[in-house]
């Protein structure tokens, strides 16, 4: 049962990943792409982490996985901000 | 236990660390370390001449799983040459770099270069050889760039990139060796290497990498600029020792480890470029406008001779004549090592005194710097290969073997190379003895002139008259189980 749930979580996470990748490819401008990517990635990875943690079935590993997720979350939020800032600065001061 | 094998490596390494932490004493640390290293190399050479091959399995693991250091005749001779040359260079550099901003930087990198050279000569493991090659390359580049100036930096960069490419090709060869033969220990490989595709491709890749580093024509393009623009003590190390290290590996691979794999047809692949290098390098040296450039092109030519020797030896079956060619090869290599380092050190003195090294403007050198001019002439004698130098004996052996084995084609090559070398030497001396004031007034003999002269004397007299010892040492090989 737990296994099935884990697989479902992983598959759902995967859906977000794919959506993010397609968004990256198809969206017209940088800011919507940025938005699509960070949202999709963070959610996708979150679901995936939950699934993987369930399948590994160890508390210690689950904590580590949570840390990985938080890292990616914070890292991608900060770097998305940096990228947007960078792009803004460049468009303001060519 | 042959713990004495570690000292030629550990001594300069420990001194390098000391010089890094205590830069104000770098010169004294460097000289003392050079002396101790010299003693350790002579001790190894003496032990090899007495007991034969020395082996040290590092960490107590059997070679293969672990790494072995080995010293045989070939490595002992090169090690001793390195110890002697670097001692002379150390004395010279203590004057050359006195008061210079790069003093501390020079000594640490120089000691690290010495570490790399000795580690390479003693290594018995192919991957370890790769690491020492990289170490040698990086230390040499750091030293070559010390001169500053656009030309020196550009030359150093080109040297670095080509050197890295060379070591990468070597590493690819090592990977194929491991895939094909399952070991990295050179003695084990000498026993199992068979003429199969893996051996051919591995040998091609490794040789390809090494001839970049050994500057075999037409891959010599990096050498003249790098050797001519480095500070004189560095040029001496690069020309005398660093290119020899790559050449040493080619000898090991072609004549010992993969002896059964190399065919006499393959020998032409390095013999022909070697022959071209002899003629072309000598010609370029004759036309060179600068003294250090002349010396650098002469190195290209001399390396050509050495590759000719390898090709000739590879074509011979194991036995007496082949051992003779091998010995002549080593004699040529070390007499070039001593002569060329003497030449570069002498050129450095001229350059410091005159502020330039344009050959056409060197009039008055003989009057102002008699001892250095004598050094240059003496080193030149060995480079041309006139008796009684070691170069003469080696070339004589080359010619007799070429005739005996019917490879007549090398006769005009050697003849032409010698004539051109004599021409560039006399051109230089002609300018040096011409009247002129370019070099300034005559001064007392400088401390830096003595080591240069000692090296030149070694190349001309000592090696020419005392070469007999080599004939006994060279056949002592750690890797030629079936050969020789």
């Amino acid at each position, binding site marked *: 049962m737990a296994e099935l749930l884990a697989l479902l979580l992983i598959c759902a996470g995967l859906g977000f990943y794919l959506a993010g990748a397609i968004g990256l490819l198809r969206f017209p401008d940088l800011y919507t792409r940025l938005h699509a990517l960070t949202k999709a990635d963070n959610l996708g990875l979150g679901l995936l982490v939950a699934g993987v943690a369930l399948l590994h079935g160890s508390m210690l590993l689950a904590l580590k996985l949570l840390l990985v997720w938080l890292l990616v979350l914070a890292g991608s939020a900060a770097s998305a901000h940096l990228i947007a800032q960078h792009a803004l600065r460049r468009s303001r001061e060519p | 236990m042959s713990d004495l094998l570690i000292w030629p490596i550990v001594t300069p390494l420990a001194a390098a660390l000391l010089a890094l932490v205590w830069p104000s004493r770098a010169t004294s640390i460097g000289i003392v370390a050079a002396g101790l290293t010299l003693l350790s190399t002579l001790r190894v050479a003496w032990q090899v001449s007495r007991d034969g091959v020395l082996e040290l399995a590092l960490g107590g693991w059997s070679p293969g799983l672990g790494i072995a250091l080995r010293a045989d005749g070939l490595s002992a001779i090169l090690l001793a040459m390195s110890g002697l040359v670097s001692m002379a260079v150390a004395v010279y550099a203590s004057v050359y770099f006195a008061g210079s901003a790069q003093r501390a930087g020079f000594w640490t990198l120089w000691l690290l270069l010495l570490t790399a050279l000795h580690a390479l000569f003693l290594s018995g493991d192919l991957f370890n050889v790769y*690491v020492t090659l990289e170490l040698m390359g*990086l230390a040499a580049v750091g030293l070559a760039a010390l001169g500053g100036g656009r030309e020196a930096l550009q030359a150093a960069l080109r040297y*670095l990139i080509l050197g*890295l*490419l060379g070591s990468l090709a070597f*590493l690819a060869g090592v990977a194929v060796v*491991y895939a094909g033969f399952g070991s990295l220990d050179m003695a084990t490989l000498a026993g199992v290497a068979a003429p199969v595709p893996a051996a051919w491709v591995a040998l091609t890749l490794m040789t390809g990498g090494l001839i970049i580093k050994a500057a075999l024509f037409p891959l010599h393009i990096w050498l003249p600029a790098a050797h001519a623009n480095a500070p004189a003590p560095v040029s001496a190390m690069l020309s005398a020792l660093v290119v020899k290290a790559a050449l040493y590996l080619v000898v090991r691979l072609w004549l010992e480890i993969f002896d059964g794999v190399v065919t006499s047809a393959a020998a032409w692949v390095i013999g022909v470029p070697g022959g071209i290098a002899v003629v072309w390098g000598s010609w370029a040296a004759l036309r060179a406008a600068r003294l250090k450039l002349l010396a650098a092109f002469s190195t290209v030519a001399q390396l050509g001779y050495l590759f000719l020797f390898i090709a000739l030896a590879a074509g011979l079956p194991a036995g007496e004549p082949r051992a003779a060619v091998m010995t002549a090869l080593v004699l040529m290599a070390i007499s070039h090592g001593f002569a060329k380092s003497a030449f570069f050190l002498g050129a450095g003195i001229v350059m410091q005194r005159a502020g330039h090294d344009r050959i056409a403007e060197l009039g008055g050198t003989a009057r102002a710097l008699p001892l250095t001019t004598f050094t240059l002439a003496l080193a030149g004698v060995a480079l041309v290969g006139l008796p009684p130098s070691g170069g003469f004996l080696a070339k004589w052996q080359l010619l007799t073997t070429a005739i005996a084995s019917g490879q007549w084609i090398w006769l005009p090559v050697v003849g032409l190379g010698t004539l051109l070398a004599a021409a560039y030497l006399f051109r230089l001396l002609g300018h040096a003895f011409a009247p002129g004031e370019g070099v300034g007034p005559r001064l007392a003999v400088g401390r830096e002139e003595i080591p240069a002269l000692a090296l030149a004397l070694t190349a001309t007299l000592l090696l020419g008259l005392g070469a007999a010892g080599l004939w006994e040492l060279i056949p002592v090989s750690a890797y030629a189980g079936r050969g020789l």
Partner: protein
Amino acid sequence: MSLTLLYALTGTALFLLGLRATLLHAGLLARVVALNVSGAGVFLILVAIAYREAGQPVDPIPQALVLTGLVVAVSATALALALHRRLIKEQAHE
């Protein structure tokens, strides 16, 4: 065809792509990048040789060699970049 072979051939391709680019490029930075790609190719060959199917232990020796090689590559890259920087400064002063 095995996994070993797949990655060994991939490594071969990368090694020679990088080697060719190192020789052909004129700019230093491009050559350094190409050298690094080339090195990665050689490392891939070595690690592929070490690989064994699940159940058998992998050969740790090539892996250790590659680790050594990686560190050497980074060191060489650092030296090349510093030389390049000094050269640019030197040229700017002329």
